[in-house]
């Protein structure tokens, strides 16, 4: 498989570009949980004028931006254990109530990273099942089945050039048939019954070139 960064005609999105791209698609008024990594960056790029309420598994609704280092509140961390702030209108609650929000389908959206997404919507993002390593799952499985919509944001390929969009996941599943949309460094794709429907690509990239870099069945936007 070809490497993503060996092309003159197009440029893959970097982490910030990806976060900004996802943020564009979040409408005013949604309740959103962001996973660790690039998803967390999405909060910094919500277009002005939109009020989006961010949820954190550890009992917070209304996460605000991270504080300056000298203004850290040691009592206020997000699910990734980063220091955060609370916006006006925010609230605190306990873990069972927090997962009522998640598992009871009250979140409009969850954005997670992934190792692999299969074209039937299967998600693998919690363990690579490395022998001897202790597995950890956190809230990933709850979020995957609970949010009204699950979007994945990830590089299109691994550092070794392997497609992260696949026909069938090789890693252990987080949840079957849960992903609705994937934002990769190269394209935006919806999970539809036949496979991934390409909703958008980075400028200069052709459908054929995208397909050649993808181990799954792609369909152009009709």
């Amino acid at each position, binding site marked *: 498989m070809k490497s993503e960064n060996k092309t003159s005609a197009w440029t893959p999105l970097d982490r910030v570009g990806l976060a900004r791209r996802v943020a564009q698609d979040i409408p005013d008024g949604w309740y959103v949980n962001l996973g660790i990594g690039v998803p967390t960056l999405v909060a910094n790029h919500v277009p002005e004028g939109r009020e989006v*309420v961010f949820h954190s598994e550890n009992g917070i*609704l209304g996460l605000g931006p991270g504080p300056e280092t000298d203004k850290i509140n040691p009592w206020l961390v997000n699910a990734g254990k980063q220091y955060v702030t609370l916006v006006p*209108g925010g*609230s605190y609650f306990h873990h069972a109530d927090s997962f*009522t*929000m998640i*598992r*009871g389908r*009250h979140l409009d959206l969850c954005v997670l990273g992934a190792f692999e997404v299969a074209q039937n919507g299967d998600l693998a993002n919690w363990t690579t099942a490395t022998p001897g390593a202790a597995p950890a799952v956190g809230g990933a499985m709850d979020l995957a089945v609970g949010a009204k919509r699950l979007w994945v944001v990830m590089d299109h390929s691994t550092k070794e050039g392997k497609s992260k969009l696949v026909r069938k996941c090789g890693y252990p599943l987080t949840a079957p048939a849960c992903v609705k949309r994937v934002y990769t460094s190269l394209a935006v794709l919806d999970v539809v019954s036949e496979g991934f429907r390409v909703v958008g690509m980075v400028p200069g990239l052709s459908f054929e070139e995208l397909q050649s870099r993808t181990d799954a069945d792609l369909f152009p936007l009709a």
Partner: protein
Amino acid sequence: MIDKFVNSVAEALEGIKDGATILVGGFGAVGQANQLIDGLIELGLRDLTVVANNAGYRQIGLARLLQLRRVRKIICSFPRIAGSTSFEDLYRAGEIELELVPQGTLAERIRAAGAGVPAFFTATAAGTDLALGKETREIDGRTYVLENALHGDVALVEAWRADRWGNLVYREAGRNFNPVMATAAALTIVQTQHVAKLGEIDPETIVTPGIFVNRVVHVPYGDPLIML
């Protein structure tokens, strides 16, 4: 900008259909969204399924909705109308269907609906007539009944104070089923006595975070009726 306040009860109730399942908070005369129920009556909605602890009181609100024969079925723990025999009359006449549910099972079934739990086991009602026909299971030597989540199309909630995000606090015994029902309906509608500015309610004290609320209408009706 998120602003869940609407200008009228009619606007708050927009889109509710005949045949809907409506969760109605309140316990006795306390914490029941009477003005929203009156709105349902004015809209002429019928064939409703109502989930509530009691069947209302006197000739107002929920009691009136029943008396007007707008309710096909009631799911409740204590189907009496305080100060009236109209529920008994309807029931004897076969004009209303009753699903009697123990109060705790009712609360837990609604909570389960809000929490994404489709079914759970409980010791309540095991070995009684209210468990007839239900799946049971022995776990660690005790018999439990399997109960299903109880979802609403709509929840009618009465709050003491609300902000534009729909964050709610309640007053004393007015809390009762309201916060539980707020989590369990596709459309949660709140009537509030008082309006708070965003950020004015201490985030440690919010009982219902706005995520569970769709619409809020300001109805400063005052105190519940005193019934002696």
